[in-house]
């Protein structure tokens, strides 16, 4: 088993097991508030972050857990934050919606649709002026429904700043929508990249279920951006996971099973159908077919990931809730009050 296969598998599993943990904690009443999970999109964050350098900046959305984990954030500190505990990245002030890790080049996370696009464009301006790094903006297809998207594209192109716009399109194709079902995107464009091409920003689409294809795509696009090519746009065509519903995420068929890559089937039809477009299952099957790894190795990696997640949960639950006085801190950063 190559180091790459092993690390890809571990990185994707880490995200999946983390999200399953979140759902379990919400069910147990330990995770308050609204939250979003990244199940079914793991390969995107893993492939994109593999192409990045420490000096690069990343911007995410309310669906940020996968981006942070792929960037190397601590699952324990993330989970503590998600539970509103003092040991979290923001000491309990951000929760899941604004989860950020400045040390990892993720200075803030906007939970507004399109909110991070202007910020990422500005980060790219800073990179250009400082002569190092690029910015990557992850956002969903609904981001294109906001004016901020168009303004950011124009500015990024006029300024020729080093930014990669990564649109993770996880919407349901219109033909699959049932009457009354929540639709996440109502954009009248066949291919999202058509929109940016009209502004002379090169674009392409990539299969969000194919980790290998995305590795090549992100490696090439980040190199173009890094070499002064200006902005790039990529539409990642994801397949929406059945548990991703309008209200609270659900876990149809229970936790993901390794056995599902070996002929076993979940007891929920929608999940059975979805597994043929699950990036994790597909990657496993492909590596198995190529003889790159065996079941024992997969089980060992999964066991290690699960152990890490159990530790993260323990860390989060052991972390105290913040003191009341903490509510008043960090309104303003410390500064000199005169010249």
């Amino acid at each position, binding site marked *: 088993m190559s180091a790459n296969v092993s690390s890809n598998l571990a990185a994707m599993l880490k995200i999946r097991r983390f999200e399953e943990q979140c759902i379990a904690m919400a069910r147990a009443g330990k995770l308050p508030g609204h939250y979003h999970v990244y199940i079914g999109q793991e390969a995107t964050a893993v492939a994109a972050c593999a192409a990045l350098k420490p000096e690069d900046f990343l911007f995410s959305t309310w669906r940020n857990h996968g981006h942070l984990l792929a960037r190397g954030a601590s699952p324990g500190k993330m989970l503590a934050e998600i539970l509103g505990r003092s040991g979290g990245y923001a000491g309990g*002030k951000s929760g899941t919606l604004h989860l*950020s890790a400045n040390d990892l080049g993720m200075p803030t996370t906007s939970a507004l649709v399109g909110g991070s696009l*202007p910020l990422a464009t*500005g980060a790219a*301006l800073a990179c250009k002026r400082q002569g190092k790094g690029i910015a990557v903006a992850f956002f969903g297809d609904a981001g294109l429904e906001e004016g901020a998207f168009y303004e950011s594209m124009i*500015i990024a192109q006029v300024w020729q700043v080093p930014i990669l716009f990564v649109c993770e399109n996880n919407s349901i194709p219109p033909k699959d929508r049932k009457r009354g079902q929540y639709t996440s995107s109502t954009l009248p464009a066949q291919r999202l990249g058509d929109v940016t091409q009209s502004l002379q920003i090169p674009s392409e689409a990539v299969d969000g279920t194919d980790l290998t294809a995305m590795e090549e795509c992100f490696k090439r696009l980040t190199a173009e951006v890094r070499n002064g090519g200006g902005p790039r746009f990529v539409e990642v065509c994801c397949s929406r996971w059945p548990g991703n519903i309008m209200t609270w995420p659900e876990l149809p068929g229970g936790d993901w099973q390794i056995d599902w890559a070996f002929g076993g089937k979940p007891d929920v039809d929608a999940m059975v159908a979805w597994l043929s477009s699950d990036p994790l299952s597909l990657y496993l099957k492909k590596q198995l077919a190529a003889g790159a790894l065996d079941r024992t190795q997969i089980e060992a990696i999964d066991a290690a990931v699960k152990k890490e997640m159990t530790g993260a949960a323990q860390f989060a639950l052991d972390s105290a809730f913040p003191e009341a006085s903490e509510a008043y801190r960090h309104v303003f950063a410390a500064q000199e009050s005169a010249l």
Partner: protein
Amino acid sequence: MKITFAEGLAQAIYEAMAADSRVVLIGSSFMGLNMTARKLMEPAVRDYSDRMLVTPISELALAGAGIGAAMCGQRPVVDLGTGSFIFQAFAQVVNEAANIHYMSGGQSKAPVTFYCLAGMRGMGAAQHSHRTQAMLGQVPGLQILTPGGADDAYQLMKWSLLKSQNPTVFICHSLLFTETSELDPNEPMLPVGRARIRRQGSDVSIIASSITVPRAMAAAELLEKQGIFAEVVDLRTVVPLDRETILKSVAKTGRAVIADECHKSFGVAAEIAATLAEDGLSFLKAPVRRVVVPDVPIPFSQSLEEELTVSTEKIVAAALQVLGR
């Protein structure tokens, strides 16, 4: 050295750009359509045009880009043009910039300056005459600078560009450009968060900021001719608000007139009146008076706009009223 408000601004911007290469101008029409004042920006254009970015008319994303660049190591100032245009950028100014330090638990900061040429400027009509300091005062995390004198235009702008570590809205008033004041380059700057006593007095405190500062000063001149000594408190910054100096002044004079160009309800003057009611009631010999803009949109016609304007005459009348004359 006597300088004008516009000279102070231009000089602050030039000196800040010279002092720190991270200072970058996202838009640079600081003087609006005032052609004389625009000439003052020529040295900056000559020496630092590489740090003056070409900007499409995209207030939302320009504000956001300023925030993003600030978080990642730059010190940008975003020229939002006419003050009313900040509404196009509200999602970024109010819901991103103001929250970043707090919601990251202190991990990140955004030292960006948003520049607005705001106020009732004469025939601006309803969509180009806003003063947004009261609305923005409801947004914890934003600093709101409202200079009313040339000295503060220079020092507050320079401070914002070089020293501030927080998102700042710099509210400039185009009718202030020709106001002059003395500026001693060797004198230490009055710290941000401290109001400036522009004129000492014993009979009534006139609390002002931005455009109402010169009008309050003129009112104090007229009052003195009647033997009334008014103290003029120039707030300089609405956030932070120097409640201590306000209370101290009213403790001395016993009477307060608050002159402010925001609308009456929920305004800057309302906040100051509330402060006096909560913490200064025992000082007051008469009810406070607000000289503010009535709660109506700003009309185009000169005679209608004048009816609503916070004028020197209205300030004088309010002072006489609190003095029972």
